[in-house]
């Protein structure tokens, strides 16, 4: 399905419209903390994602004000990149590499079992709020394939069984 509809259909997306001065303050601080030679829409989005783990609706507006772009342009950039997400992630983010090496070494099986243990089908958030499953095209550790990462911590030479144990122990 297309983005236009998808974003309308994000559960709870409308909740984000609630203006929240604390949230906005945090966003403003996160944007202003940037120490890059050039501050852009993209760098501000990254700063926000670093701060919150996702990009709240208010951040689109705050970044527009800060960079002088229109909200629509900020959204255009934000919606272009897969790495940005617009709902609050669950407690832990589990990324499973499905690049060629990991694929050959058994990533499909890990994905299947990990999704099953999280109670989801493929990428997404588990209902209990514990885990978010994402696919990654390459985690950059092909020698140790198959690789998964839990909260940015890499685990190599995985098997489906070990991965499930790790997820369960979260």
């Amino acid at each position: 399905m297309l983005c236009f509809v998808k974003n309308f259909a994000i559960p709870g997306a409308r909740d984000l419209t609630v203006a929240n001065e604390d949230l906005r303050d945090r966003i403003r601080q996160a944007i202003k903390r940037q120490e890059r030679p050039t501050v852009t829409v993209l760098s501000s989005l990254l700063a926000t994602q670093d701060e919150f783990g996702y990009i709240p609706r208010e951040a689109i507006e705050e970044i527009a004000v800060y960079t002088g772009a229109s909200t629509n342009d900020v959204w255009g950039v934000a919606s272009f990149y897969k790495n940005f997400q617009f709902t609050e992630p669950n407690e832990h983010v589990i990324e499973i590499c499905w690049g060629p090496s990991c694929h050959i070494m058994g990533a499909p099986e890990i994905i299947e079992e990990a999704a099953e243990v999280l109670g989801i089908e493929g990428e997404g958030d588990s209902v209990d709020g514990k885990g978010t499953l994402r696919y990654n095209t390459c985690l950059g550790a092909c020698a140790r394939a198959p690789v998964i990462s839990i909260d940015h911590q890499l685990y190599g030479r995985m098997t489906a069984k070990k991965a499930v144990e790790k997820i369960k122990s979260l």
Partner: protein
Amino acid sequence: MPEHITIEIDGTKVQAEAGTNVLQAAMDAGVYVPYLCYYPGMKSFGACRMCVVEIDGPRGTETAASCTVPVGPDMVVRTRTDDVQDLRRNIMDLLISEHPHGCLNCHRVDLCGPQDICLRHVGVNDRCVTCPKNERCELKDTVRWLEMELDTELTYNNRHLPQQVNDPFWDMDLNLCIVCGRCVRACDEIRGDNALAFVDRGGKGLIGTSIGTSLLESGCEFCGACIDVCPTGALVERDHKWDKAVTTYQSTCNNCAVGCQVKLEVDKRNQLIRTIGDLHGAPNQGQLCVKGKFGLEYVNDKRRLRTPLIRRGEDLEETTLTSALDFAAAELAKYRGEGFALIASPRHANEDLYIAQKFSRVVMESNNVDVSSNLRPELFPALGEMLGYPAATNTIWDLELAKSFLVVSSNMTEEQNVTAIPIKKALKTGAKLLVIDQRETELTRYADLWLRPRPGTETALIGGMLRVIVDESLDDHEFLSKGVNGVTDFKNSLWEFDLMQVEQITSISREQIQQAARIFVENGPGAILYGLETVEPVDRDACVRSLIDLAIITGSVAKQAAGTGLYPLYAGANEQGARDMGCVPSHLPGHSLVNEESAIDRFNREWATVLPSNPGVGVREITEKITSGQIEAMFLLGNSENFKNGTMGEFIDALGDLKFLVVADTFASEITEVADVVLPAATFAEEQGTFTNMERRVQLTQRAITAKGEEDSAWRILGQIARRIGVNGFDHPNSEDVFEEIRGMVALYGGITHERLAKGGVQWPCPAIDTSESSAPHTEGSQDKLSLTPIEFPEPQGEIDPSSEYPLTLAHGRVLREPDRKMEIDLVDKRNIIVREEILEVHPEDALVLGLSVGDVIDVVSERERIRGVVDTTSPLKGVVSTTTLFGSRLLDINQGATPDPMIEFGALPLIPVRIEKVAAQPIEAAAD
């Protein structure tokens, strides 16, 4: 002259301007190359690849998108080889795989009706005949031109997206979008609004707004530019969505002073169904605003007056045109002299206005003639005295080349919308913008420096800027020494403008005044645009003079170059025309004063009459004169928002005091209710005429629809009454004949003929047939030197009496978007509405006196309205309450209102006296924070 390069296109050698692309060069040479994402006037984008051609160039033979290849020497271009055509068909196959294409390449598409049984199994929803842009679909035309085979190997992938039909005026069906990006680029490159953007990526990439929100929130000004450029049915106007145009007429929009050239599309039922900006129109270059794009629907309204009405006792009764005119003539004949007044509307053509003033002066022997928008007459005379002509010096699109701008108290993005387009374009390329205004408007968002002087101190502020320019020797010495009188007197007069004092009375800091002067001069010389909407009437003349001084000492009027000059921004569409036609109480046609003897002699001779020489009463004094009994009979041509919004006092009430009132209007209203005779009036779409816009360009309107009843144009109605009263000189057979008389009487129009106008607008001064257009006539070849006017330090305004009923001033601004403010879009009755809390900014000292704290809910009450909002103590000016509302809210009010002709209600935003009423203290939770 730009350099030309010879290239060969399909075996023919053609000349192309260096720097243009191959596609444009081919089109200029009359060779058609199909394209879908390119659009004249916008940068090349190279998205659709439909314009591929074979080019023998420096890199050998290549197949390239011609819109992105600049012409080069000795290029050989082949546009229609078999290979290229095959490639285009393949590209089109891909393009239409996400657009319903069952009909596109069907051989009987032109014969098919929506209900026909279809052998190709094209569902009714996917048929071209059910697409709102069927008759003007560029995609279909391109597919037909490519002579595509009946079937494509790719199946149609329906996106199944819901239609977006909740915003005003505008429908979007993204299932038809081919992502050419024209709308996004038009909104960005041309309009500078960025209300649309590309969203998402890859195969899912489409156009849209931030998080799919409503256009009301995304900063849309509803100009319709995206609809006009959309090559498919993805973006369409909602009104008359599926109606088919039978004829198109070239005309001029009469909703504001820009005079946009439009194409009026008329259907077979004699209805105006669409307005499309004319790409070749000099004032607008294809652009329109909401008033022109969506605001001309009133001409079709069923509530139009179609038959004359006459008062019998309490009621108005329908009657025949003859008896209504007989009655009006017989009655009006009793009120000849200064007891008669005529007020026309600025929406009338020059012909109407000329005959109106002639009727008033010759038939009724009264100089009391005016247009209802003429509430700021001070904008003009100083221009005439100091520079030669009471009109703008340069053209609208010259502004694109300006390096700096000074905009004084004008909400031009709403009132003269298209004028702001070249300004926004120039700002993108580094020009600087200064805005002097108490209100926050769209332009203040773009301003490099936004100065908010205390109301009534604008002249002092400009004087302060002049002083800085002279002190820092930023003036144009060469020009001043050669072409200007009164330099010493002027400079001496500036001694009074001590910056400390200026700072004190304007509340603008010295540094800012210096900065303003430097920005304006060092990037300039720049253009000065002034509306003086928030300036007190008594200060306006001095303010205009100080601005002209500023233009002269910076050499802005001397350069005659694009990007300089002075532009008065007045409200009425044909107010310039009214001035030229003498439809003002103080001037005869051609700008001669009513008491100027040589002029009177000439007009007496030409019109065979004896003209009154007392200056007449204008709209600003008329209410008072009616109430005091000095005016007994009136003729009103057209309605105006000014009649009831208080700017003319209690005008509607005063009309009751008249002994006789004739109204010629398009709709029944408060003014027709009290009239003795009501005559149905034609609109601009029903009569040929000429309009003069704010850059002195005389332009034609054409008869696009025929009258359905007895409605007629003002000049013909007035002529018939004049003949009945027994006065000669009103026997014009058609409007061209009236214009011929105008040509004879107004020297500036002498060389403008209908023949010339048919090819496009002509700027005055144009004294002879062979006069070519000139952009800046004010200083051209003039023997007289320009003169500077010494300016006086304005008397500091007395503080408003705190015990008066309305002790504060409200500065009400409007902007397109405020992303940092909380707002929500709610759906009510299938329409989006804006839900937002307004913030009323009060000066901290005022808040202290009134016992207000941040977060309190208050009402700001004026004589006519009441605005509720939450207090913030951020107003920079003591005694001024400021608030900024959204353009979208106003648009919704207008769109949902019941009035048939809503765009005249758009209204200016003057400063108004108000008082504050506290509704509730801040909620306890908020106070705890």
